[in-house]
């Protein structure tokens, strides 16, 4: 295993780890708020569950990029490619957008989801508004995912 492949693995690990941390925090924050609401109004479970799930996507995006890096570098099939340092560095860089943006947007989306859950607690009819507001934070995670994919497929 050469330096190039190690750098590519670091890129895959970072995208999975940071994206996962962002989502874990976001889902946890929204989940705590949802638990508080459901302990008083159990009938709102369905509405708040959707909001709690929204910050979970960053972890999926990070995992997706990690898998794509592992597939492209042949690690997943058990025969790692002989990458140059520059190629390895390129894979590492490809993982960075979703790693950092995924982490940050997961945390912030979680906070927005928690606030929307609290809004839903006060006015159950406003859950759709809450979903829209929370989903808007997702935009930046999607853009980061696209950036990671474009960089990934641009590596020669």
């Amino acid at each position, binding site marked *: 295993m050469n330096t190039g492949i190690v750098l590519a693995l670091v890129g895959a690990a970072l995208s999975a780890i940071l994206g996962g941390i962002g989502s874990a925090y976001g889902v*946890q*924050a929204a989940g*705590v*708020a*949802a*638990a*508080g*609401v459901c*302990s*008083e*109004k159990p009938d*709102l479970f369905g509405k708040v569950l959707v909001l709690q799930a929204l910050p979970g996507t960053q972890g999926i995006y990070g995992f997706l990029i990690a898998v794509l890096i592992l597939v492209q570098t042949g690690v997943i099939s058990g025969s790692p490619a002989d990458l140059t340092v520059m190629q390895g560095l390129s894979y590492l860089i490809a993982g960075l957008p979703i790693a950092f943006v995924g982490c940050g947007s997961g945390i912030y989306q979680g906070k927005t989801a*928690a*606030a929307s*859950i*609290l*809004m839903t*607690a*006060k*006015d159950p009819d406003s859950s759709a508004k809450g979903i829209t507001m929370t989903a808007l934070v997702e935009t930046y995670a999607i853009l980061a995912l696209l950036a990671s994919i474009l960089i990934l497929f641009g590596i020669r």
Partner: protein
Amino acid sequence: MAGGTQYLFAVGRVKAKEEEIIDAGMWQRLIDAEPDEALRLLKDHGYGESGEETSAEAMIASEMTKTAKFIAEISPEPAFTDLFLFPIDGYNLKLMLKGIVMRKDVTPHLREGGAIAIQRLQRAVESDAFDGLPKAFARAIKTLETETDARVISTVVDQAVYDAILDVLSEKKHDNALLKRYFKASIDHTNILSVIRAGALGYDEKAVSRLLIDGGDMDKAKLLSAVSDGEDHGALALAGVAAEDGVKKALARYAERPNIGMLEQALDRASLSIISSARGDVFGIAPILYFRLMKEREGKMLRMLFAAKRGNVPITAAELGVKEA
């Protein structure tokens, strides 16, 4: 310090309960209804703890107890929420001390739910056993051992309540800028009411200075100078030195149409607005305190409403302070 997630859970529970706060529509129905019908409306709204209370007062008292229990159950930092229980201890202490002066048994009138157990407070008053009592309360009891003037007793106890609160907030682990601001504003509002009342009763500056509480942000000299201006002009003079817009407006309105009840309500609202301004912080104590204060205010408004109904006095939503609720 409690973590943000503990607050999130508690705030989630509070927000789900905020729907229970009586809204403007419900207030209007209560105002329009006959006393019995108003009681039934409250019961249908879920007001009261058991649903079996037969009088408005019993229902309000039971709802206050329910709210206090709920807050105690969810509070991530009881040190902060317990600060709002000290006024109950202050009320009990005033009653006990005034009871001694008037040689009357006040036990049936004491209120449960304070931060200090009634028995402990009674022991302190009767036998100077100050163990477990906040230092400010012990100091006040010692100071008032031979005092017979009811107004001075009230002022010294009020001072003890605020000192006890500010003592807690001065501890490093309980440092909270929002609560300090709230309680300092409450001291200012109490002093403003004392000056206005004293002005109406024709007290001089020396007499009023004994009724003012230390610890607020308003300059005491400026407060005292308003006494000599008389009731209406004094209110305008106070409006000139008050820092908050809500207080300035309330005093200006009072100067135009003196109504101490409405001024009290306006000052209550000004205090509440301090907590309200921070209630968007779902990782902090403000939403929990806001709910508590809203419920307290709701109880006060209901007491006013039912008192008016008992006395057959017409009362409007504005007089109750509903518009700003």
